[in-house]
């Protein structure tokens, strides 16, 4: 059954969209990740214009993050002050990202920007996950059991000025690193449409040294606001948010996530990360291949404003 998407301006099989949303929802439920970094490339592979894929993905991420954020809010595992500082950075980053997006769109390079960003981030994240999980598996086979190294030494983050006290995180650090982190992630949200949790969470743990119990909640808190802002910015600048597409993906996504979460309980953590790492690398490799392989047609059309 075909459905006509009003903003993407094409007719596409409704079950393909529900299936894509469901499959990525399944994975995100299983691995506990947002899934936007997989869904956007898959949408591009199925013919959705990259700009629409990004704008719509930002909108869909708002929906898929809200339940988690609410749950963490009720449990009191959101560092509101840290979240707000990250959010200020995120807002600045979103505007910067949207500006770069518009600039490159006007010279016909926005598809390249999206592809390159994805290849870079999928490659790095996938590679790191793969190495880390293989190490964990090897360490466990040897019987030693991986010991989490988390030094208590102060790093460079603690020597910067403009210190602020974050009670919930039990931190007294400069506001500059979270502002910069927020800005970087805001740019990624604007350019890639993802929530950016895959950068935010590790950076909060290893760079800011936040306690792990408030990391996810605080990350989700700011993701909702930043992806919401990016949705509005993409609507205003590019008219690239397709609510119908977002709703279809979301419907598949929430159902898939329920089954994914159950399947995830049966698999071991490091095996999960190994699988996810391989999947991420695979999607990145496919995008990268499209950049270097000789195209079938050297010419491409972009509509009036493109």
């Amino acid at each position, binding site marked *: 059954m075909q459905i006509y998407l009003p*903003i993407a301006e094409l007719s596409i099989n409704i079950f393909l969209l529900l299936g894509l949303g469901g499959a990525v929802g399944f994975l995100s439920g299983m691995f506990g990740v947002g899934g936007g970094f997989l869904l956007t490339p898959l949408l591009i592979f199925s013919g959705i214009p990259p700009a629409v894929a990004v704008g719509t993905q930002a909108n869909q991420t708002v929906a898929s993050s809200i339940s988690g954020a609410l749950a963490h809010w009720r449990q009191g595992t959101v560092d509101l002050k840290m979240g707000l500082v990250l959010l200020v950075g995120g807002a600045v980053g979103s505007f910067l990202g949207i500006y770069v997006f518009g600039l490159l769109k006007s010279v016909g390079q926005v598809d390249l920007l999206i592809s390159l960003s994805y290849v870079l981030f999928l490659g790095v994240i996938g590679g790191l996950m793969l190495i880390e999980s293989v190490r964990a598996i090897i360490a466990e086979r040897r019987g030693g059991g991986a010991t989490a190294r988390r030094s208590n030494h102060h790093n460079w983050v603690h020597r910067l000025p403009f210190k602020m006290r974050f009670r919930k995180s039990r931190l007294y650090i400069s506001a500059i690193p979270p502002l910069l982190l927020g800005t970087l992630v805001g740019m990624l949200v604007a350019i890639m449409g993802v929530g950016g949790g895959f950068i935010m969470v590790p950076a909060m743990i290893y760079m800011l040294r936040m306690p792990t119990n408030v990391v996810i909640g605080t990350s989700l808190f700011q993701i909702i606001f930043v992806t919401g802002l990016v949705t509005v910015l993409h609507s205003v600048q590019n008219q690239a948010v397709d609510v119908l597409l977002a709703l279809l993906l979301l419907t598949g996504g929430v159902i898939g996530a329920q089954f994914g979460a159950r399947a995830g309980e049966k698999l071991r953590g490091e095996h999960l990360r190994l699988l996810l790492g391989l999947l991420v690398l695979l999607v990145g490799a496919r995008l990268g291949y499209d950049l270097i392989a000789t195209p079938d047609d050297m010419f491409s059309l972009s509509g009036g404003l493109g």
Partner: protein
Amino acid sequence: MSKLITKFLLPYVALLGFIDPVHAEGIVTDLSKHEVAIRSNFTGADILVFGAIERAGDSASTGPADVVIEVTGPETTETVRRKDKVSGIWMNYEATRFERVPGFYAVLSSRPLENIAPASLLKVEQLGFNNISFGKAWSSVLGGEENLRTPDEVAPFSTAILRSRAKDKLYVADSNGVVFMGDTLFRASIPLPASVPVGLYTVKVYLLRDGHVVDAISSPLLIAKSGVERVIYRFAYGQPFLYGIVAVLLAIFAGWTAALIFREH
């Protein structure tokens, strides 16, 4: 409205054609519908063009009559980009912007165009793929300065438009598309694909004899988004800021509802 025209006006138009001494021969035509609504289940449509040749007193005219139907969609600016390998990566390098590119173009005839009329006439009437004009062409490299180019210089770019649009079934040429029933009645079906652009179309029916245009009639055809699609599209382009806000609120509501439903289980 169109029904009214067919029922009451057509006989008079036909009569005029019949007695008008200047037009010894003429055509009357109409479309099966003058408006196409694009809804969520839109997978394309066929528009039927039908008509009749109205002949003057001596029915034994010379040579066979030919009917050519040309459908032109709304014209827009179109940018064609050519990829080039830059440090190992294929990226858009040279771009050409054409000022008036029809979003849809179909030419249907009862036999190949080149057998119907001389090349000079086809060029003047802009009939056929090779004769569509795309307006002025401007070229630039990597978003740099734009320079006006002649049609010959940008031929690879204009043929790229033809190729791409033909692949998407947005440019159609069918030399068997017009079917005659007897000597005077004819009909043709214009296939509109799902990705057909919205806007005002012109359906022009030519009657040719011995390589000359004897008569030509234009009819308008409106293709518009309808229902939810129209509302969403107009909202997104008319009130982009409000649209963004609503999109976010909708996402929050949907995500929250989903969370509630699954907590029950």
